[in-house]
């Protein structure tokens, strides 16, 4: 089974609403990353949060990490139609490679 699992698998919201997706993982990590994938730009790195960090911001993105619960969340505020994409969390269980989850498919309706 995959190291990271995103929840929900699919999410549909209206433009302007916030979107929250979660990632749970099984083993200890050094860092956790979030990536976005859409047909236009492929797979793009969004944010990296280290195991000793609890929260990180980048523009409209807010990522939290709870190592005690082995979980992370990605919040996109004031969503736009252009945010429509699949979002993946990636962890480094062995410290030397990334393992991706199955992704959350986000649809933002105009």
């Amino acid at each position, binding site marked *: 089974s995959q190291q990271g699992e995103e929840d929900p698998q699919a999410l549909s919201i209206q433009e302007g609403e916030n979107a929250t997706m979660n990632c749970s993982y099984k083993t200890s990590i050094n860092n956790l990353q979030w990536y976005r994938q859409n047909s236009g730009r492929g797979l793009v790195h969004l944010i990296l949060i280290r195991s000793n960090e609890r929260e990180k911001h980048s523009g409209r993105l807010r990522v939290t990490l709870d190592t005690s619960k082995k979980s992370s969340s990605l919040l996109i505020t004031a969503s736009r139609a252009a945010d429509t994409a699949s979002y993946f969390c990636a962890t480094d269980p062995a410290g*030397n490679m990334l393992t991706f989850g199955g992704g959350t498919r986000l649809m933002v309706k105009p």
Partner: protein
Amino acid sequence: EAGVAQSPRYKIIEKRQSVAFWCNPISGHATLYWYQQILGQGPKLLIQFQNNGVVDDSQLPKDRFSAERLKGVDSTLKIQPAKLEDSAVYLCASSLDLSGAGEQYFGPGTRLTVT
């Protein structure tokens, strides 16, 4: 800065045929990765190179898949012979990070269809 380049973008072959994919990483990136992404799933690492040496190929089906990175720059991934279940997008990525756990930059991918 030029991104990760891959070719071809699309390939359709019959089962038991062979196919090769090419990747040119971002200049100066020592670490190169090949991922397989089956429709509806996340990318799965096949092989990781640091310069021209293999760091991890534990998930590479070595009976049919091979990869090389001559001179520590470009890389090719080959499948011979292909099976129906090899239908997927093959993504190449590169990174400055030598650990394999840092930010990675992905190419557009090659969509392989095996019929």
